[in-house]
């Protein structure tokens, strides 16, 4: 698929990206971001979720773990005798849904960020070695990737976490050590292209070692593909965590996660719809933000787009 500038807007963004920096780089990036409504929406959502995750305990209206049997299953907007409002209702133990959604954002952010850092690092190094070394090693490494890719990601993760056991840190590691497969092939393909570039040949001619060429000249030129993929993977990972926790194979109570909240909601689906509706909206908005930001990053970082301007 070619990524031609689709609108004048984009063409303008690209022109700006190519211009010498007049403002400081972060400000410049923000200026480009402002030009894309989708990118901006993504950035706002992602920033908001991260802030909520960090400042959760401060902004949370109630204690997310506080049980109150007398106010269980109260619908959204419920006000107790002391005048406290529970805007999104209560669950089967009388805990405030809004506070629990705020608390649950932590797990999503943690899992999304750390797992993707782990899987990205492994995947980039794997792809780099496979593409750079080439030959038999490349064939072997790529056949392994083919094999692993033929087991659908979530099924692989379900099987591993079923065997290894659940828990937040275990889950982060499992998602980190399985997610790399996606990067390996893409990075390898990029390396194959970059490997033949003149500046790489020039680096060899100047007497640089293979190791230096690989990490100083090839890696920086393939890393943009990894960043775009990483944005996609953050969304995939957050969805995977919620699926696993929902199935009881991920994070365990009393840790609060959106997937576990949905699992509670399913138990009382006949009576308390709000227990299911709101955590799902939280997941959807978060992933949507990541997807938007990823789409924008792809257009922004894709060398095909930038090269043409």
């Amino acid at each position, binding site marked *: 698929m070619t990524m031609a500038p689709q609108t004048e807007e984009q063409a303008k963004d690209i022109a700006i990206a190519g211009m010498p920096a007049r403002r400081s780089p972060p400000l410049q990036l923000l200026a480009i971001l402002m030009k894309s409504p989708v990118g901006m929406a993504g950035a706002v959502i992602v920033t908001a979720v991260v802030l909520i995750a960090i400042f959760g305990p401060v902004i949370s209206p109630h204690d997310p773990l506080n049980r109150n049997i007398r106010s269980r299953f109260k619908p959204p907007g419920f006000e107790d005798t002391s005048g406290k409002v529970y805007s999104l209702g209560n669950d089967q133990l009388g805990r405030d849904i809004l506070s629990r959604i705020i608390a649950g954002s932590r797990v999503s952010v943690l899992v999304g960020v750390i797992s993707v850092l782990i899987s990205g690092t492994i995947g980039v190094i794997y792809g780099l070695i496979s593409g750079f070394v080439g030959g038999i090693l490349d064939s072997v490494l790529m056949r392994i990737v*083919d*094999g692993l890719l033929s*087991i*659908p990601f*979530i*099924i692989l993760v379900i099987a591993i976490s*079923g065997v290894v056991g659940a828990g937040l840190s275990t889950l982060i590691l499992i998602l980190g050590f399985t997610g790399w497969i996606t990067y390996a092939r893409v990075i390898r393909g990029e390396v194959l292209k970059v490997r033949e570039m003149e500046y790489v040949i020039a680096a060899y001619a100047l007497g640089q070692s293979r190791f230096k060429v690989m990490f100083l000249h090839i890696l920086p030129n393939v890393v943009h593909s990894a960043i775009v993929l990483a944005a996609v993977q953050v969304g995939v990972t957050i969805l995977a965590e919620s699926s696993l926790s929902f199935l009881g*194979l991920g994070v365990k109570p009393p840790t609060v996660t959106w997937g576990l909240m949905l699992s509670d*909601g*399913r138990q009382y689906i006949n009576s308390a719809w709000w227990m299911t509706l709101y955590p799902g909206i939280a997941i959807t908005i978060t992933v949507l933000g990541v997807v938007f930001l990823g789409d924008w990053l792809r257009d922004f970082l894709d060398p095909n787009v930038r090269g043409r301007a």
Partner: protein
Amino acid sequence: MRGFFISRLIQLIVTMFIVSVVVFFILRLSGDPILVVAPDFFSEEQIEQMRRFWGFDRPLGEQYLTFVTKAITGNFGTSYLAKRPAMELVFERLGYSWMLAAASAAIGLTIAVPLGILSALKRNSLLDLVITALSSLGTAMPSFWLGLMLIIIFSVHLGLLPVFGALEAKSIILPSATLGVGMAARLSRMTRSAMLEVLSQDYVRTANSKGLQHKTVILRHALRNALIPIVTVFGLQLGWLLGGSVVVESVFSWPGLGRLMIDSISVRDNTVVQAGLLFFALSFILINYAIDVIYVILDPRIKFQ
């Protein structure tokens, strides 16, 4: 053409070999597989006996070889729980899984292809914007949550459709709609970009300037060529569909392979988990194999290689 099938067959065997290694070692990740299933009150001696019975006292390489040679003949061992061959259990569920996957794929394609074409034809219009927004939304939504919401709307509030199991024909509607919508969201985006790419090709311009009817140009010239990338993406998204089906089958208690796997994982019935994993991988590989063949039929420019 024979060369194509032979090289593909070799590729298939290599991939299945790697899958078998992965599947075999996944269950060793927990350390000693016997300690996982042995009851707490078993003595050291009894555990040792059990280990010998299941062959876990042999060297790892030998264990793998035994596993593979048996697996090739369709023998995955006996389910710890059901005390029946794991293969039998898998076969009982396979039909349900395929039925659900086929229905979901059909729903996905029926929604995605027309919407994707429309979106490409009316590019940058309000309609395009709405379709694109909906497809982003559908991609971001967890499939099992959509399933739960459909249950709330259609079963709990409207009382129209059954929630659990596969007892009546109507039972397939909700699970397949759940997965179909997710599939449609993923496919319509790709249909749109494939169609856009084709519409800018010279042969479409030629067909238009020949004075052919717009409808003829779109359906006969553009769509036929756009189908190739659509088919490819469809093959890739099947992985999502199979994965999603595992979770969605659990939501709706649909008696497919995914639900069998989840149930077996929670009771540590490892032989069934192994058999299930291998069958998921095999279905995925075989469908993509079939798609490669369809690819060549759709596009005579690609020769069997």
